């Protein structure tokens, strides 16, 4: 009796698991993994040079072109450079702010700052990029106040992307600072370390996984972006613009698919590198 009851309980538990798991899993596998598989496969297809229709025969031509074409290589290097610059500036802006929020500010100020940092995330992405277009324009407020504006180009792109992704850096770094025990800071200063030494030798190693976690967002969001650069980048082309151009303007879906493998692999590589720092548990 008891074993029968237990096995029927087990059976029911498996049944409810299947009921819970199959619909979302089916959606993700069919829609998402299926699409990624199509993406990988379609990178090996080609287009008919007369009709532009996709030809489903396998060829490595697109991959070879992506790896050897000078324009694509320059755009790849530029995009990686922009993503790294954005990440570094976000770290520079976020670390002192997060330190202030977690270890200096009173609880009430801390809560206000958490709300202040996260609220811009709810504002529209396009509106924020557009705000920088207005800010940096020749007759805009920056030119009026400072008498100088970098105009639309590489600098504007880095600035705008930094602005867009900064909160994604602040939040994990703030969380990491908050987890540093107050005792550790006191112990360090009791043992004679100056504030800066404590910061460098005690807090930095503890906060690093938070910085790494934030950098995953800033890096991968920048790698795939093509909207902000269209709005403030002037003639600057990032990988995303080239992928978009191949798909929409040149109507070459297989080449666009092959090109989109670059950000895909760059980000997977970055994720694997950051996994060693324990960043993925901090995302």
């Amino acid at each position, binding site marked *: 009796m008891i074993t029968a009851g237990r096995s029927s309980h087990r059976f029911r538990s498996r049944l409810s698991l299947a009921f819970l*798991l199959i619909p979302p899993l089916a959606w993700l596998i069919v829609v998402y993994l299926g699409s990624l598989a199509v993406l990988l496969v379609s990178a090996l297809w080609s287009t008919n040079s007369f009709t532009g229709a996709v030809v489903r025969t396998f060829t490595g031509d697109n991959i070879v072109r992506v790896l050897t074409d000078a324009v694509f290589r320059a755009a790849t290097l530029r995009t990686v450079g922009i993503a790294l610059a954005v990440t570094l500036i976000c770290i520079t802006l976020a670390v002192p702010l997060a330190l202030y929020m977690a270890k200096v500010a009173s609880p009430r100020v801390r809560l206000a700052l958490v709300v202040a940092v996260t609220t811009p995330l709810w504002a529209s992405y396009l509106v924020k990029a557009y705000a920088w277009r207005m800010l940096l324009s020749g007759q805009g407020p920056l030119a009026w106040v400072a008498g100088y504006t970098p105009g639309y180009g590489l600098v504007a792109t880095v600035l705008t992307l930094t602005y867009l992704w900064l909160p994604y850096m602040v939040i994990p770094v703030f969380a990491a600072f908050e987890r540093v025990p107050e005792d550790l800071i006191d112990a360090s200063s009791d043992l004679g370390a100056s504030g800066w030494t404590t910061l460098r030798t005690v807090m930095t190693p503890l906060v690093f996984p938070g910085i790494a976690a934030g950098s995953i967002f800033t890096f991968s969001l920048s790698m795939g972006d093509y909207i902000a650069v269209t709005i403030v980048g002037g003639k600057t082309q990032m990988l995303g613009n080239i992928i978009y151009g191949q798909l929409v303007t040149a109507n070459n879906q297989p080449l666009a698919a092959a090109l989109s493998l670059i950000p895909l692999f760059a980000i997977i590589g970055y994720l694997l590198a950051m996994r060693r720092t324990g960043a993925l548990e901090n995302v």
Partner: protein
Amino acid sequence: MLPDSIRRLTRAWTVLVIIFLYAPLLLVVVNAFNSSKTFAFPPSGFTLRWWSDAWSSSGMWRALGNSVVVGLCATAIALVLGTMAAFAVQRHRFFGRQAISFLVVLPITLPGIVTGIALNATFTSALGATLGLATVIIGHATFCMVIVFNNAQARLRRLGPRLEDASADLGASNWQTFRFVTFPMMRGAIVAGAILAFALSFDEIVVTTFTSGPTVQTLPIWIFGNLFRPNQAPVINVVAATLTLVAVIPVWLSQRFGGDPATTRA
């Protein structure tokens, strides 16, 4: 206690970063009332004219309607599927559980352009489907699911199984336990997830670009399409200011119903 020099420096830095975060948003709101047609600075005068222009823009209203439909449908699908996945991962032990946790977060870790191109290739080249509202909803539901899943799963993990076990020990059926114990404790997290999912869908542009085809416009696609037209600039400015001002609604909602503002969006 950190020394005064560090405290002062970080305070000054904080003030500067907060100005950096809010000055552009303030500018958007100011420019919606700037009477200059080129929006040169300083503003040449105050006007409400752009607001009535924007109000009578039929393209904007149609795009807004599409955005709301897409957001509601995608959120509804995501709520059901994301919550189910969270329960499966947090309340059952099975082979491949870790792999599923990883699979579920992929759609937000990979850039929109990869997801967009992948869905576009599937819908057009592989399935031969016509792009439209339905394909946009499918695309949005996929990443919205992740948001709902993350929120629900974090709450379930924090709650632990004890209260549910107690309920079962006291003779409640699975359904009763869910209805009277689990769901009331989960409600905040589910609402927060839904608000966030809707907000993300409402703001999404990249996946939408690749899944909407030429006939369907959501609000971001409409804004982007009109961004570079000088004669549309006043209307765009008003829409931009409105979107900036309504951004406080989800912040307020999730603070009121979801608790913890820090964890809802990150």
